[in-house]
């Protein structure tokens, strides 16, 4: 067994907990943005207006086909020179993670919306609902319930994906654990324990949500 005594020291554990906070903050912000962006992309893709439909389709299909790591590098190294704004690593991480996950969330939401019985939509229209009303009051409540498991699965993936931002220098959990350990000493297990705990909590939340909505 490798010696892990270096790990159980106040400074190092504090340093790592700070990394856990970064990981959770990154994930939480990216989850919020990607959900909103994903919903808008899904609605745009389902829209009959070509000006909304085709850009959304193109964005979703291209982003889904690219590695997240490439998108992270692109956001950090290339995007600033394109838009003329310097990006901090954390901002770049949030943009890359949300932009990538939004494309996947959009497909989940689209599938959820398409799974809603057409008759319900027609019934809503027959009751005099406007399209926005029937979307907000009839379609989305049903669709959101159906896509909860898939969405939570995607957000757990996002939590794991935050580890990729270590490569552009964000001091999240994985990068701190690499910094913290003496050379060539495996301490990655602690990192796993934290991530597993976070995921376990997400899974429990998801199960509760599903139970409550069932």
């Amino acid at each position, binding site marked *: 067994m490798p010696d892990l005594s270096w790990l159980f020291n106040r400074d190092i554990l504090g340093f790592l907990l700070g990394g856990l906070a970064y990981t959770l903050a990154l994930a939480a912000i990216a989850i919020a943005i990607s959900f909103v962006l994903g919903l808008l992309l899904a609605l745009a893709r389902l829209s009959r207006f070509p000006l909304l439909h085709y850009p959304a389709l193109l964005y979703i299909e291209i982003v889904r086909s690219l590695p997240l790591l490439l998108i992270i590098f692109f956001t950090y190294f290339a995007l600033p020179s394109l838009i003329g704004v310097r990006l901090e690593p954390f901002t770049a991480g949030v943009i890359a993670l949300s932009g990538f996950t939004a494309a996947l969330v959009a497909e989940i939401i689209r599938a959820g919306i398409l799974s809603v019985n057409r008759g319900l939509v027609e019934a809503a229209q027959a009751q005099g609902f406007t399209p926005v009303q029937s979307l907000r009051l009839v379609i989305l409540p049903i669709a959101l319930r159906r896509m909860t498991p898939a969405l939570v699965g995607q957000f757990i993936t996002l939590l*794991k994906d935050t580890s*990729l931002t270590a490569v552009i220098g964000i001091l999240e959990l*994985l990068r701190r654990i*690499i910094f913290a350990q003496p050379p060539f000493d495996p301490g990655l297990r602690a990192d796993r324990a934290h*991530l597993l705990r976070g995921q376990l909590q997400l899974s429990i939340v998801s199960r509760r949500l599903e139970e409550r909505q069932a």
Partner: protein
Amino acid sequence: MRWSVLTDNFGILLRGLWITIQVSALALLLALAIGVVVATLRVTPSRPLQVLGAAYVEFIRNVPLLVLIFFLFFALPSVGIRLDAFVAGVLGLGIYTGAFIAEVLRSGIAGIPRGQLEAATASGMTYVQAMRFIILPQAIRATVPPLGNNAINLIKNSSLVSTISVFDILGTANLIGSRTFAYTPVLLGAALLYLTLTIPAALAINLLERRLRVGQR
């Protein structure tokens, strides 16, 4: 933007593409082998073997792939196992994707109603015949789309080997980028190279899916 970086470094970018193809193909073979073994463990009648299979799947699926790759490459040397970066990358990708493939295969077999196996044996088929002619043909049909998605994810995930100094597409692009500071054209070129792999793969899977659907009522 200096697009000439792409033409100047065309040769090494293509070499990166070739490395990505090699890493992905080898890791896919490993993942399929692990997937079949672990899925078999999970459907055996033996309880300890089931638990072993389930533990593998749950542990690996819930750890970031980058942690797994770093563990193989940076941590194993401290216990005396020194892996080449390419080998560590293929192993990490294979072990990771294997857990997902095991789940796909298991749910494919579990999705066939048990009554069909009973009906087949009641009609005089042996267990092997029932599997071969009744269960597996249906299970394979159900597993093709998710297996294909996992293969595409594997191609995308293979970019992580660039972090342990394997010069795949992304590794090469970063190298060129850091030398020339022309990140924008180089990364866009790398994106195009990935699209030439993932989009045809997605189309091929759609085609295969449609082929397999023929004959299904």
